[in-house]
């Protein structure tokens, strides 16, 4: 088979099977509006033709996407042209491709299609990704293989310390889709689903369903009555029982949502390393998603340990990579493990960054000023809240429950502060800047030192009085900034100097500064 990337001058349309998918997707998107139209139509004497006309418009609109989108892969460029009124042309050189996502939502899977999303370098997170929606699944897989392999076989000038890509053995004309030798790093163990209720994902989806459902509950008054009936029956048993039953029901619902969410997104999760120097993840129950990350572009990892997972000795891992943000829709692409046992997370982090000290080594604490600031920052607002509720209860008639609710935070604040200080730390290894912070959402960030492209040393008024600074390492990958908070001033400067070498060292006051990594200055 000729490689797709060789391509030709011809502009091509996407897979014609999308003519079926687009109208369905549009219909789903306009579902609330459609329902309103149909139900209101039943009660009026309007002709049924209207309903069909609107449906037809939606179908035509969906199909028009296929007719107005063309792509071509030619001369080392990937070009995408789309839009009817608002036309746009997206272009990217194939050797700037950094990440390739292949996603197959349910409809796509039924028809054997897959969506290809291409992330490029240089544009940062703001750049629009090229999305080919959709190609035949085998074509998509081959295109992904070729794109990443082409990148791997054209090593760039800036050879980095963090690069772990092995030598490239095949030429890029070979098919590399599924046949490349691969090393399995992580495979989902179904028992890990026990961690799902410990994350906040269940709460988030419950809130989303609540918000969405509340609108429909209003329209279906019958159901609402029934729910209210149930609530009344429980309430008749007494307030205490009602609260307990309510909490248990909510807990069960949230856990159920979290578990199903976990299964939907992580089912069959696999992380593999391919010889071309790429990491591949594959996951999903209904919507499958395959992501390829070029290892040369990985600038580190984030080990997430939110409180719930931490108590269960679990965590999750995501990659810090250029061409891919860690927020919003791109967040999922960077995951290297699902919520999983801590040793799996650490082992995987090790496999990706090869730096044991960075993954689990001890950290340098930030000192008494940082500890004091954790306490003031936790105690001050909660104390104000408590005082305000107490004062309010004197002035107006406030139920005593509210006063208790208002004052519980101030009692918890010392524990939060202590835990936040216990988490706070940083260290420098030979290749990484390691930053750890947070209590409820604790994170240990490992950022490759050569991925740091600038430093910011910031001091607020109160920080200046306490003699501490926040050192932010800026990078083109992941969150774009990784902050080390409340470092003693001179330690902050020292860390900056070690990370950026003479770039910072030349501004040092002490003339005796010896640059330990003088080779960086020449880069």
């Amino acid at each position, binding site marked *: 088979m000729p490689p797709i990337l060789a391509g030709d001058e011809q502009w091509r349309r996407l897979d014609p099977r999308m003519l079926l998918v687009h109208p369905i997707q549009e219909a789903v998107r306009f579902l609330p509006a459609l329902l309103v139209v149909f139900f209101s139509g039943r009660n009026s004497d309007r002709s049924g033709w209207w309903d069909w006309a609107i449906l037809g418009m939606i179908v035509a609109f969906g199909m028009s996407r296929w007719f107005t989108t063309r792509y071509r892969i030619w001369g080392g460029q990937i070009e995408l042209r789309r839009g009817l009124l608002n036309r746009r042309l997206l272009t990217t050189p194939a050797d*700037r491709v950094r990440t390739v996502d292949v996603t197959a939502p349910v409809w796509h899977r039924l028809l054997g299609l897959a969506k290809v999303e291409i992330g490029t*370098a*240089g544009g*940062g*997170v*703001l750049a629009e990704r090229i999305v080919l929606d959709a190609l035949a699944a085998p074509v998509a897989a081959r295109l992904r293989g070729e794109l990443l392999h082409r990148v791997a076989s054209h090593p*760039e*000038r*800036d050879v980095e310390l963090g690069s772990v890509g092995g030598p490239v053995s095949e030429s890029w004309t070979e098919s590399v889709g599924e046949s490349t030798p691969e090393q399995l790093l992580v495979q989902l163990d179904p028992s890990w689903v026990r961690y799902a209720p410990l994350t906040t994902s269940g709460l988030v989806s419950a809130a989303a369903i609540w918000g969405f459902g509340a609108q429909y509950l209003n329209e279906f008054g019958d159901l609402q009555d029934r729910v209210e009936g149930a609530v009344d029956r429980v309430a008749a048993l007494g307030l205490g029982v009602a609260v307990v039953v309510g909490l248990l029901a909510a807990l069960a619902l949230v856990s159920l949502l979290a578990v199903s969410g976990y299964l939907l997104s992580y089912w069959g999760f696999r992380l593999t390393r391919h010889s071309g120097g790429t990491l591949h993840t594959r996951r999903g129950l209904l919507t499958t998603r395959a992501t390829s990350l070029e290892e040369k*572009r990985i600038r580190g990892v984030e080990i997430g340990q939110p409180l719930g997972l931490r108590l269960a000795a679990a965590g999750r891992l995501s990659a810090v990579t*250029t061409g891919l943000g860690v927020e919003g829709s791109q967040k999922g692409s960077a995951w290297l493990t699902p919520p999983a046992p801590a040793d799996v997370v650490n082992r995987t982090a090790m496999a990706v960054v090869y730096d044991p000290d960075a993954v689990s080594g*001890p*950290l*340098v*604490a*930030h*000192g008494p000023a940082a500890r004091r600031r954790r306490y003031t920052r936790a105690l001050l607002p909660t104390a104000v809240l408590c005082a305000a509720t107490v004062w309010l209860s004197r002035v107006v008639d406030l139920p005593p429950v509210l006063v208790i609710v208002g004052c519980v935070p101030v009692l918890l604040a010392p524990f939060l502060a202590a835990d936040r200080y*216990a988490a706070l*730390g940083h*260290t*420098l290894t030979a290749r990484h800047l390691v930053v750890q912070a947070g209590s409820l959402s604790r994170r240990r960030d490992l950022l490759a030192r050569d*991925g740091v*492209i*600038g*430093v*910011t*040393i*910031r*001091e*607020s*008024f109160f920080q*200046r009085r306490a003699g501490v600074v926040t050192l932010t390492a*800026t*990078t*083109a*990958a992941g969150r*774009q*900034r990784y902050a080390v908070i409340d470092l*003693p001033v*001179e*330690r902050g*400067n*020292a*860390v*900056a*100097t*070690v990370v*950026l070498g*003479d*770039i*910072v*060292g*030349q*501004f*040092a*006051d*002490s003339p005796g*500064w010896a640059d330990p990594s003088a080779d960086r*200055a020449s*880069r």
Partner: protein
Amino acid sequence: MIEPGPTTDTPPVRLREPTNLVCPRARWMWLLEGIIQALLLGGVQVGWWLLDRHGPRDPHVVVAVVTGIVMLAYIVGMPLWRFRVHRWEVTPTAVYTQTGWVSQERRIAPLSRVQTVDLTRGPVAQLLRLATVRVTTASAAGHLVVHGLDRDVATALVERLTVAAAAERGDAT
């Protein structure tokens, strides 16, 4: 957790300030901007006075006095304080800026990572022949800004940085 001190490997470092002050006219720019902000707040106050015709006048007086004092201190203090803080320096390998007043910030970026260099002039800055230079890197969080440069100094700086950025190959990530 290791306590900071002799166990940590690197000696403490003190950074000196960047060498160059911004143009002295920048004080006038900040002063004018401060006055404009104060006038806007005053406008809001007048609007409130006119709309609230029948209410008591005491809250108006209290708010006006408080904002008046705060804004006066701001207009007088902020430009001088800012002028003392704002500094910049460009070496053959790096750009170094210091900005802020209440909160202060030092930014250092290797010249080799510079991606774009912008020169902007707001209406007040144009009046005073001043300009702002903004340097971006491949990180969305990594830009450096020098406010209140003399227009000619700024133009020369932009030229110098642009040449340096163009000399660098690769995508600077």
